[in-house]
């Protein structure tokens, strides 16, 4: 009688392996750190910001100075404080849109992929339709219908992200639907919902997590684009897109005004992008192509 001596495996803790792989990518860690800083800024904005972002106390359109580190805007508000508070709008839009997109798209894709047949057909036609309407038009129409406001903005951007999530989840589900461990779950007597939620879902999460990050970075840009069109975050709550929109009119008077929100926007996308790449590496080694927001999300 023989028994395999169990060679001690390298890591005692679960899930650490991919975390470590993520951690090894320096740029991913930098991205995560950057995002954490942004999130902290957004969360503690009132504590950190030197001024009330809505207070119109300063001279308008000052350049950077000791009192106003990044200068003031056209109404004499402190740009730095507005940027810090603006992180809220951007990050909320990012997180919210990703949550809406995933919240609708993932179950849709899971059902379509796992149940197949007519469920799949119906779900995929819906997805086709959503995908066929350019994201920005879709967001426009949704905002116009629902009225402006933060929640509606999130909904509008999030719904645009649904097809990506649905397709991704569906493909991943199809990929493992007939895998042995799913069959095994059924063979053990698991019901269909149980199999879907407990067996299939955790195993399709990896690309979804990456897509969440991708969607978030897309949402930051679309939020800016919509605010730019006047349909984004309502004033006086600052948002980077709104600041960009305002700033472009004063580029000549105060060139630095537009620079900073632009940089913040780019930096956020950059951080998210880095994290996404890091996650991708962590999940898959080199990794299959993740369905990035391939349509014109950013090129609105």
């Amino acid at each position: 009688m023989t028994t395999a001596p169990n060679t001690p495996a390298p890591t005692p803790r679960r899930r650490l392996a991919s975390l470590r792989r993520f951690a090894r990518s320096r740029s991913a860690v930098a991205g995560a750190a950057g995002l954490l800083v942004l999130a902290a800024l957004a969360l503690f904005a009132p504590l950190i910001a030197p001024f009330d972002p809505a207070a119109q106390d300063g001279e308008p359109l000052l350049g950077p100075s000791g009192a106003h580190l990044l200068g003031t805007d056209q109404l004499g508000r402190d740009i730095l404080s507005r940027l810090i508070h603006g992180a809220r709008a951007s990050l909320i839009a990012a997180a919210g849109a990703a949550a809406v997109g995933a919240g609708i798209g993932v179950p849709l894709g899971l059902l379509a992929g796992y149940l197949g047949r007519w469920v799949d057909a119906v779900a995929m036609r819906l997805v086709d339709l959503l995908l066929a309407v350019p994201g920005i038009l879709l967001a426009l129409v949704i905002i116009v219908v629902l009225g402006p406001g933060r929640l509606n903005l999130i909904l509008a951007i999030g719904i645009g992200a649904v097809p990506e999530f649905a397709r991704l989840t569906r493909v991943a589900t199809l990929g493992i639907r007939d895998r042995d461990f799913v069959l095994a779950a059924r063979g053990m007597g698991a019901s269909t919902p149980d199999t879907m939620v407990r067996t299939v879902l955790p195993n399709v999460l990896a690309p979804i997590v990456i897509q969440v990050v991708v969607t978030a970075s897309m949402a930051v840009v679309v939020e800016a684009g919509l605010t730019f069109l006047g349909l984004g975050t309502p004033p006086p709550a600052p948002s980077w897109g709104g600041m960009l929109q305002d700033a472009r009119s004063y580029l000549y008077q105060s060139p630095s005004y537009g620079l900073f929100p632009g940089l913040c926007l780019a930096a956020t996308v950059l951080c998210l992008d880095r994290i996404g790449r890091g996650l991708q590496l962590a999940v898959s080694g080199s990794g299959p192509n993740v369905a990035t927001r391939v349509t014109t999300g950013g090129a609105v």
Partner: protein
Amino acid sequence: MYGYLIRRLLQFAVVLLLGSIAVWGFTFALPGDPATVLLGPDASEAELAATRDRLGLSGSIVEQYVSWIGHAVAGDLGSSYYSGRPVVSELLDRIPATVQLAGFAMALTLLIAVPVGIAVALWPHSVVGRALQGYLTAGLAVPAFWLGLLLIIVLAVQLRWLPASSDFVPLWRDPGGALTATILPASAIAVHTSSVTARFLATSLGEVMGKDYIRTARAKGVPEREVIRRHALRNASLPTVTIVGLQLGGFLGGTVVIEAVFNYPGLGRLLYTAIGERDYSLVQGGVLFVVAAFLLLNLLVDVFYAVLDPRIRLT
């Protein structure tokens, strides 16, 4: 293959039908009334009612939809409330401009994405590779409209090299003029899309380079350049074709902000204005057209894909 095509066409019809219903549902959910926009702030109730009648906005939604879809099938999408012109001719007016911009943008996208994607995939650790990776990240991070603004300020306003407002100059009439008029918005779009495409291509190429058949080609003694050109690129381009198709589809009506920034008379701007003006018939017709064009384009892409990939073509 033919069965597949026909099935895709059927799906296409289903999506269009769904789309038309959705578009109708949405336009009727839009707050605001075309009559008020048409008549302006000082019009009276009676005038508004009269205008609504004239625009065919009375009657139940279902009635309106049925009559509209009937006409739409025959190619008549109704008339714009504002211009009074048939929606079809309104759209046809903008289509050449849109197609031209999309074409330029896509050409630029590919012109950038293909070499960059290849370089990044093959020499990811070289100086050039790293620099290009920086470009890819920056391209994703900079919103296209913001880049467009910068381009306008620098190239058009400061240096006065190129026009800031991009009128539609038909390529077939004045190629040089078309180029100068389109290059700025096309670049603003292409920087972003080329980053996406190049990344995609780089990833696929990287994946393909690890495939067994690449090893086979090397083992045959095929020089590396040819390995890449003949074996790797063709396979790597397959998934990229889909992305390019989606992007191209997105250009039709999806470049709203860019068109606004450059004042380009494209479909996106038309639809944006139409939504703002509550020009229902134009919105309905236009969105439906955009959806149809997108689907058709993707159908073509799929066919092209099948041409490239015998595994699909021959089953």
